[in-house]
């Protein structure tokens, strides 16, 4: 059975159709989850896509974390379900406390819209399970607030526990330790600043995002088998 991928939709989200398209291309079944819903409707994996949830007022992701759907996402994550936040979704997951640290304005206050090289740092995450550690992926970034920060204790823990999922080869935004993606302590929640769904077809200039989404679908199917 094909994995059902719940895609959370806040007012202001704008990458949901790209994610749904890519998921479908890879054989998954995308399902939109409006932010006011309190249920995930049987999703095997959840994607919090990019955009400007709730206008990004106050701070990116600050208001979104109070949407009813986020309680369901938190329960799903606590039960071990795979959750990935992409770009604004990463910001939402840090504000919700599902991922450590925070994303603040890029160093130099530059809005970045380019394709960058990221190194896969671990295969122990739902988005890199099928990727080769050390391999380099050519992935688009598109953000003003992708500058990852956390306190020293968290930084050490991320490093010691192998929880940095992706690192920039050339740091574009001032991000601490070149971090482009991290995972939670239980490893099932992941945040990525790069957009794998925008690198999922040759026509888009890169297919390097496919391995990440394929990994997610694989871990979704595993979860479905367990449940």
């Amino acid at each position, binding site marked *: 059975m094909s994995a059902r991928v719940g895609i959370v939709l806040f007012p202001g989200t704008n990458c949901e159709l790209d994610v749904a398209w890519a998921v479908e291309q890879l054989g998954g079944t995308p399902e939109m989850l409006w932010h006011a819903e309190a249920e995930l409707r049987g999703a095997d994996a959840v994607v919090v896509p990019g955009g400007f949830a709730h206008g990004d007022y*106050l*701070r990116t992701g*600050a208001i979104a974390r*109070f949407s009813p759907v986020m309680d369901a996402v938190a329960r799903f994550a606590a039960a071990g379900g795979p959750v990935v936040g992409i770009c604004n979704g990463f910001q939402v997951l*840090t*504000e919700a406390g599902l991922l*450590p*640290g*925070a994303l*603040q*304005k*890029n*160093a*130099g*206050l530059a809005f970045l819209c380019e394709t960058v090289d990221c190194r896969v740092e671990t295969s122990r995450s739902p988005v890199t399970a099928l990727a080769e550690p050390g391999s380099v992926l050519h992935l688009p970034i598109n953000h003003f607030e992708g*500058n990852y*920060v*956390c*306190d*020293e204790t968290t930084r050490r823990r991320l490093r010691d526990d192998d929880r940095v999922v992706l690192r920039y080869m050339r740091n574009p935004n*001032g991000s601490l330790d070149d971090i482009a993606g991290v995972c939670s302590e239980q490893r099932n929640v992941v945040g990525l600043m790069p957009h794998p769904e925008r690198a999922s077809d040759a026509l888009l200039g890169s297919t390097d995002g496919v391995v990440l989404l394929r990994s997610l679908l694989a871990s979704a199917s595993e979860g479905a088998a367990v449940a």
Partner: protein
Amino acid sequence: MRYEARVEITHLPGIADPQGATVERSLPALGYDNVSHVRVGKSIRLVVDAPDDAAARAQVDEMCRRLLANPVIEAYEIELSELAST
């Protein structure tokens, strides 16, 4: 009682402040080459009805922790003043 709260939100010490750094770098271009330690934060003002000063402060503090500030990277200070009742 009615209180006006002014909340000043700043970066925690040790957390990089990209806005402050950028402003600081741009000031010498205007001839101000004697400025340092620029920090850019946020100011939020609100009015709260509460039985007394302590209750108002406790509520604003809770709102700061839960929404107004991000305790992972931000510090906040609350200034409270009683508004004259009309």
